[in-house]
């Protein structure tokens, strides 16, 4: 165990697994999207438009999962105080913000032909937008705070507070009257529709795990250089003797 591992930094040598996870995720997404677009039958009422759900629903599920991971990382950092949890936390929040933004865009494209509007201040949509802006705010907070210790603690506390919105997003369709349909289950979805949904769900899962592994290594490397003592100035070029300079 080297000094950095003792200080609780993430081991940067194990990033190879991240590339493997990203590769598996991309492959699954390509297969799932192909089945969803060209193999699965059209839906009885929504026709072909429902095919958007094969990317929208897996992205939404995984957005909640990645924010749950961010919450766990934030909590672990506050309890254990080791830097690896801060790096993992930073990565999870960033990946989650990308997925949450994507969910809003996909949902909006689906809403136009089915609801007749691009956006509605419906409980599910509003709470999801709050989730996106809340975690985007945490990323902004991390950018503006220079002291690594304060940055880690403040953003971990902010994540724990913002995470309260995740169960609200999930239950919003049950608690309030919502345009958005309630959660589906394998009992309410026909078998031909389930396969692309599951393949894409695992695709997004592998993708965010892989990206999170790589991104947390980036955060760990930046943190190490931030906390390291200043590097020596590069040595100046040797001065030439007057005769040689001529």
């Amino acid at each position, binding site marked *: 165990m080297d000094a950095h591992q003792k200080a609780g930094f993430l081991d940067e040598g194990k990033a190879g697994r991240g590339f493997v996870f990203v590769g598996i995720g991309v492959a699954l997404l390509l297969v799932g999207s192909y089945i969803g677009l060209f193999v699965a039958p059209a839906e009885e009422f929504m026709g072909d*438009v429902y*095919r*958007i759900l094969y990317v929208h629903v897996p992205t939404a599920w995984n957005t909640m999962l990645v924010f749950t991971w961010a919450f766990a990382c934030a909590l672990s950092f506050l309890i254990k105080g080791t830097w690896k949890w801060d790096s993992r936390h930073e990565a999870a929040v960033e990946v989650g913000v*990308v997925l949450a933004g*994507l969910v809003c865009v*996909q949902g909006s494209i689906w809403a136009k032909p089915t609801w007749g509007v691009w956006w509605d201040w419906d409980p599910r949509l509003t709470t999801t937008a709050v989730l996106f802006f809340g975690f985007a705010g945490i990323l902004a907070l991390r950018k503006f705070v220079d002291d690594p210790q304060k940055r880690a603690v403040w953003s971990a506390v902010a994540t724990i507070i913002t995470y309260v919105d995740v169960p609200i997003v999930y239950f919003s369709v049950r608690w309030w009257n919502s345009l958005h349909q309630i959660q589906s289950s394998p009992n309410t979805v026909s078998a031909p529709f389930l396969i692309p949904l599951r393949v894409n769900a695992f695709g997004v899962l592998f993708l965010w795990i892989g990206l999170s592994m790589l991104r947390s290594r980036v955060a760990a490397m930046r943190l190490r250089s931030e906390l390291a003592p200043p590097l*020596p100035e590069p040595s100046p070029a040797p001065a030439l003797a007057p005769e040689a300079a001529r």
Partner: protein
Amino acid sequence: MNIPMTGVVHGGWGFVTAAYVITGVILTSYVVSVFARYRAERARQTRDSGRQAEGNR
């Protein structure tokens, strides 16, 4: 085209294409950005450790 009101959505492939293309573009851009930042940090780390070794000599 005059379609009777049946509650069934007709067409919509344009929306489907837009959703998949936007998803692909956003995810690909993010993957490329993470890979690029990872490579840049690795390169910087190698450079810094070289300078550190030079300073120790």
